[in-house]
């Protein structure tokens, strides 16, 4: 696979959020880097599906969730920046 850039990952995340905003008729969400994903307006279970989609989009298997588990981090505590950096890091590993 090709290397994942931060901006590319952000655009994918943004697209998902835009769809979800549209689905739920909620106000536009600003994906600031330090915002926790759980505070972006969705119920927690939907974040799980979002992460799953990101993994699928980049062919990461369950690497993103596995990384969170290895680092003993919870989804509710992760920021947009954390997730995007993780995707970039895992993408680089996968393409290495």
């Amino acid at each position: 696979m090709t290397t994942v850039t931060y901006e590319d990952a952000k655009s994918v995340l943004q697209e998902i959020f835009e769809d979800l905003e549209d689905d739920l008729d909620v106000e536009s969400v600003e994906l600031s880097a330090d915002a926790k994903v759980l505070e972006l307006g969705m119920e927690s279970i939907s974040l799980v599906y979002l992460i799953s989609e990101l993994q699928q989009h980049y062919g990461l298997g369950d690497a993103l969730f596995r990384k969170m588990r290895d680092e003993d981090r919870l989804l509710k505590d992760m920021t947009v920046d954390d997730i995007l950096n993780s995707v970039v890091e895992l993408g680089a590993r996968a393409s290495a």
Partner: protein
Amino acid sequence: MGDSKIRTLLIGLDGATYDLLDQLVEEGVMPNLGKIMEEGARGILKSTIHPLTPPAWTTMTTGRTPGNHGVFDFIRVDRDGAKPSYTLATSSDVMVPTIWQIASREGLRATTLNFPVTFPAKPIDGVVIPGYVPWSYLGRAIHPRPVFKMLKEKGVFKASEMSTDWQHERKAVQGLSENQLEDWVNFHITRERRWFEILITLMEEEPSELTAVLFDGVDRIQHLCYHLIDRATRDQYDTPDAIKTRELALQYYRDVDGYVAKMIEKAGPQAQTFIVSDHGFTRSGARIFYANTWLEKNGWLDWVEGTPMDDQGRVALDENTEASTLIDWTSSKAYALSSSSNAIFIRQAKEPGAPGVQPEDYEAFRDNMIKELLALKDPATGKPVVMHVFKREDAFPGTYSDRAPDLTLMLHDYSFLSVLRADEALKDRQVPYATHHPDGIFVATGPGIDMGKRLDPLYIADVAPTALYSLGLAVPRDMEGKVSESTFSGEHREEHKLKFVDVIEEAGGNKDTSTLDAEAQAQIKERLKSLGYL
């Protein structure tokens, strides 16, 4: 959208049984279905060895048995780690193509609504709205994306009314009081109407040669209300709440009956329709088998210190605690992790001295456990508890047999076991409950169907190749199910010769076999526990 005409309409009624349907037809509640069953072809549809929603529907839609499609439960147990854990079954666990994937591959369009184990949607030419998706993600889960926007513009997509109300189900699985049952049935009345409206909209806007929808409220209502509907027991329940709930339940069936008729009419005169269920239903017995407690009493399982005793007739935990956290993994040799699977796993030691059964002792250990299970009698009744014990290799032979449980139990009353700790291995059930039975339904109608035919029992894997034949497609030779040729008239069979094709399937395109893990699964497991399956 295009000019596709529906060739095959597959209507799933989760858990539908002739035992109730025939009664409801006789009593005038389901006149349309009665006419279809009388004039069309009908037969019993034998479910998977353990008749459970995910493996059964997956068998129905792939033509493969669980050992060859890879889905055995709502969960997939991972035994590779130091202690057993489980991951959730998703579409990535389905290792062979579904009929909608095959149809799409062959140049036809397919629509599939509300089937389990279909998230994330595998791309097809057509529409997928997966089942078991939380309401706030249901729109996003729709494939392709523009369909969501169209459904929303049409005003038929109401995610909160279509998805499962998990909090509601959490209470329901352990039983509801009579006054709560009314809300339960009303919820499903609304829910099915939404799925019906979406299907009709898609028939107009996105017609597909293969169109499939699953109404799963049948199962949910029967679990809790069977005793109020079945004429063998209903007269025993005559409180105002019970009578009101019964009337609502009958309204539910009236609605479904109307939807079936309207869907068939909308599909057009050229369409063949198959109405199927993944399993049947029957009343549970009065007792609950606490499998892990039984294992404990045999010296094969230890509980974590402080594990509470259940005294409420529950099959799983209410709170957000996995059953696996109750088990002491330093010493336990066998365990049950989910109520849904009726499965016992035997833990093989990774190395000498490690917890579990040494590999060389496995066969003898398992044989002894089978013997003890079959010998088990309920001290209250003196009757045997376990009807059959299936070994993995016998119940689920195939490529993915290693994912299957070591033993699968069929209890005498067909009920689900409890994974909780109790003071006794068999305890009284607290509220009336109904459970899955292996005999589901298969009803066919439309041009080319051998009308009025009473079919010999079919196997659930037969539905997929039968649907492909109905679509005019060749049947993959490696499908385990067989085309139910007797469903079709001789003239139709003469004009539409059965064709087979050699297909070397990639493993379902499933390199990404575990898309959910860690916290993801923890959160979804919570939802499954609310259904009482874990």
